[in-house]
């Protein structure tokens, strides 16, 4: 039951409990809608998929930019609350001992410390300069561009990887 939505006919609102309600082509409104990224790593702001309560696809929007202002804001809100991945802006401390790395980093969400075990399998190179780090609890941290970090952070990273 999937369809490529023409963004013109898609309307989105929140009901009184804060759940999303999606209406397509003026059809029946669907409640408790979930919004996910089809390719969160390679195309974070494209291919946004709307799912119903049971996880069935309602529609997929090619570009976030194609949505009207209000809808787009709602979608962005929803995506930020669903994807709790944090971007690392600076590394305050990073020590690694016997295969366990202790991190202390600054992110847009604030400062956070976390532990990574088994560096080999927990750190994925998404590109030669982009890193995804998954800590022991399954929290996700991303370094979008290694070269954009300050010198000290880069040095700390280099010693661990």
């Amino acid at each position, binding site marked *: 039951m999937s369809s490529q939505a023409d963004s013109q006919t898609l309307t989105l609102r929140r009901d009184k*409990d804060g759940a999303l309600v999606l209406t397509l082509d003026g059809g029946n409104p669907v409640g408790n809608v979930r919004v996910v990224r089809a390719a969160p790593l390679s195309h974070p702001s494209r291919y946004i998929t709307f799912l119903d309560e049971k996880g069935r696809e309602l529609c997929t929007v090619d570009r976030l930019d194609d949505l009207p202002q209000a809808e787009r804001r709602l979608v962005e809100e929803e995506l930020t609350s669903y994807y709790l991945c944090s971007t690392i802006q600076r590394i305050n401390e990073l020590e690694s001992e016997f295969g366990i790395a202790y991190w202390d980093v600054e992110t847009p969400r*604030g400062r956070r410390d976390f532990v990574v075990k088994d560096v080999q399998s927990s750190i994925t190179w998404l590109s030669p300069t982009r890193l995804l780090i998954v800590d022991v609890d399954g929290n996700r941290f991303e370094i979008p561009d290694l070269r954009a970090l300050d010198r000290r952070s880069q040095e700390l990273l280099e010693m661990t990887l």
Partner: protein
Amino acid sequence: MPMLEPLTSEFEKQWRSLAHPQEKLLISAMADLTADGYFGQRWLLVSDRRVLVLDSNGAGPEEAIEVPLAEISEAKTESLVGGGRLTVQVNGHPRPLITYTNSEGDKFAEVAAGITQLAKGEELKIAEELPPMRCPKCGRRLPDRDGVCPACVRKGAVLMRITSYLGSYKWQAAILAGLMFSRTLAQLIPPILTKRMIDEVLTPRQNFSLLIWLVGGLAAVGLFTAASEAASGWLAAWLGAHIIAFIRAELFRCLERLSLRFHDRKETGSLMSLVTRDTDRLHEFLVEGLPYLVTNGLMLFGIVGVLLSINWRLTLFILIPTPALFIGGGLFWRRMRRLFHRWWQRWSIFSAELNESLSGIRVTKAFAQEQAEIEKFDRRNEELLWAGVVADRTWFSFFATMNFFTSTGALIAWLMGGRAIIAGQITLGTLMAFINYLWLFYGPLQWFNQVYNWMSRAFAGAERIFAVLDTEPEPYSDPHAVHLPRIRGDVAFEDVTFGYDKSKPVLKDVNCSVKAGELIGLVGKSGAGKTTFINLVCRFYDVGRGRVTIDGHDIRDIRLEDLRNQIGIVLQEPFLFNGTVAENIRYGKPEAAFAEVIAAARAANAHEFIVAKPNGYDTRVGERGTKLSVGEKQRISIARAILRDPRMLILDEATSSVDTETETAIQEALARLVKGRTTFVIAHRLSTLRNADRLLVIDDGHIAGMGTHEELMAGEGPYRRLVELQQSLSRMKAMGG
């Protein structure tokens, strides 16, 4: 029992101002994300009358979210990417209350269960104590939830534990230490002899008899050094090999005894490398690293001592390059480690892709992608090439530099020592002794940084090994367990909730009871929880809440040997070990007579196809059993289960991957087999279950119905939908065929 995480003072104050006089706090739990998604604190409190969410950031208590318990029907956790959200059902609508990162996931799963229990007016039955998140000593986050802080334990403890294995070989270790010590002393002697030779024989050109003695002395020292080197090397190898074999054996024993929950978390590959690579590194350290460290450490002190006693001023001069050597070496090893690591990483990617390409050759050819594979390989090959070249280049240029630094020590010695000779302060023999010691001194120095590296690698391995050794094994031979030599086969689930990951329950509040000898068919969509149900019957996992009983005993109180010995299990993908067919059938009962093996194979409808093979029962299953078809393997694994004459039988999709004819053969075998035994059968094809006494329908972790085929068809449940769907499918097939 309440679950209370101690409130911080700010939130304690908020709660005090909000609490009614008689209100009792039952649950308090901190979330690590604020309402705006920042890292921070947010608290969820549950009292006997309401649920509260308190925020920090100067928000006063008047802004707290409040939901009366009376309006809540249930609470659930929902997983997000990198975290989770606790949602309560308020008058039929879901209302998200609090978001947290994955670090707090397990805690909020308990909280959700607690809220649901309170909302339903039940007794609060959740874990009271939460595992610590941080080390109480150093404040670091803990890598595991077992409360062990490796950063605090480790250091000395690991070395102590490694050396504790020496305990059983006290004498050999003592002899080894003695040999190493005396060898070090012996190596310090030759320069002293050559010094006398130069000063008392060569320079004055006289005293041939002294020369004979001195050369004899050199020969003796050489002989002793060689002999003790051979002896200590031999002893170190013997000791190291014995200790490692012991640790390896202990490790494997431990792995076999560990629960499936442990094995689920670890990949087979990482366990293999634990038994092979990590023990190997430890071995390397024990046989080479440790002796090297001890002898050369002693040697350095010895040389400096001797040099200082001969001429302290000259000694200080020639030691000038030492700090440079140390620092340079340190920097170099850091760089080298990175380069080697990169090279090693390229290697592992390279070999993984090579493996993949070769095993996927059929697909590659089918899609005509040979060229793309070749290009991919070339790229990896090139990367590997350059990683190797860069590492080697650095390696060799380092040695050139190090040799230069080392020789500057000698240059200083020539210059300063030469001047002292001209001034008549020292003899030529003294200078030559200095220069000889110098080479002895600088040689090992270059390697010291490397030894540290060596050590940390070995220790990391040792630590991983010890972590496994310290994991609680399955409770075999528990003296308090109930002895059940013959299980009747009554099985009951009482309020069972279970998830492999605590925050994601797979079975929810399951209640059912099965009488001894019943044949129960488990029906449901894939992922509904059928296999999980069976895993709990076998006690491969322990329930999260509630209990599973067999013959009225909690399964956790029954001796594990008794339980597993009386359960026969046939899996969807039968795993056969490398060996003959007969050996595989005998796997669970190695003492079985050959006649029993044949009887079991007959019962499994396997006898005929086995004897039709050229080697009959002696046919080797071969690597991954490639020589047998799936249906054949299936029947062998059924025979294996039959041979043990189990009281309970479990068939997990045992007939799903075979054709109808084979299925009929297997069905016949099973019909003979299930008589008088409690049997659970999971099957996708509902036709397979026509002999079942009752069917148990599982839908999304709940029991959606239990009864005979007719009873279930009379209702409107998911079973009827499944049956109708399959019927229409087979009609379609019939029309198409």
